[in-house]
């Protein structure tokens, strides 16, 4: 119970976001209209993904330092949930873009960067699948994970800002913080980011624990 307090916090925040995301007041803007509420759901997916990727990176580095196989499990499962969040962010983005930008997949630098980034990360899982030896698999994929992270972040955060992008905060477009988001939205948006990120971490820890249990059963045999 004491160890699980953050799970209750997560639940509370997610329910709060789902209710207030719809009932709260949002600015009236042309083209966007009510779809601005997607900010509470689409954007936190990417925040969640980034946090999970950082967690995965940390455990990959940890594995390389001490060679404990449990750290490898942490790294791979956090990466798994990160990709899930990325896919969700991508799908929700293309639904949103379809009705506001007029195209589900416009040739936007941020979209292309994310597509490339996701491919880089999927190679991480392909790489893992191609080794029999556990330690070798863990070591090489940990090294690759660091590379994938180092490639992904500038792709998504820096490159789109150098050219024109439809996304806020890129290529001269104002970021959310500047004009679009007023204080009424902030009180939902910040909890939303925390809520979905924590939810991702929670799902990640469940996957990790299942795998740790599986491992200790295999060790006994």
């Amino acid at each position, binding site marked *: 119970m004491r160890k*699980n307090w953050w799970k209750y916090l997560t639940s509370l925040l997610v*329910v709060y976001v789902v*209710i207030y995301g*719809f009932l709260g007041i949002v600015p009236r803007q042309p083209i966007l209209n009510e779809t601005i509420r997607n900010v509470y759901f689409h954007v936190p997916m990417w925040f969640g993904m980034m946090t999970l990727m950082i967690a995965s990176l940390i455990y990959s580095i940890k594995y390389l330092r001490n060679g404990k196989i449990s750290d490898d499990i942490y790294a791979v499962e956090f990466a798994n949930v990160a990709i899930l969040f990325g896919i969700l962010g991508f799908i929700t983005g293309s639904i949103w873009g379809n009705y506001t930008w007029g195209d589900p997949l416009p040739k936007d630098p941020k979209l292309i960067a994310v597509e490339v980034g996701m491919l880089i990360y999927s190679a991480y899982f392909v790489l893992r699948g191609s080794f029999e030896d556990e330690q070798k698999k863990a070591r090489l994929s940990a090294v690759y994970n660091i590379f994938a992270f180092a490639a992904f972040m500038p792709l998504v955060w820096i490159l789109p800002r150098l050219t024109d992008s439809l996304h806020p905060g890129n290529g001269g477009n104002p970021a959310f913080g500047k004009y679009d988001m007023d204080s009424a939205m902030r009180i939902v948006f910040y909890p939303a980011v925390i809520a979905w990120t924590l939810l991702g971490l929670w799902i990640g820890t469940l996957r990790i*624990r299942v795998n740790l249990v599986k491992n200790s059963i295999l060790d006994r045999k």
Partner: protein
Amino acid sequence: MKIANILLQQTVEMADTFRADGKIYVVVAVLSVITISLLAYLFVLDKKISKLEKEIKK
């Protein structure tokens, strides 16, 4: 007669909250059910895994 009828209908109190604002409350209700159920499901999963962990420790 007709107008009076409409007026009467509008003044009669009904449970209108869930039908107000383009029925958005219905959507909120549906989403709340889904979210809360999914969260409850996660809690159940969490408990099951905890049990497994305890069994392994024995």
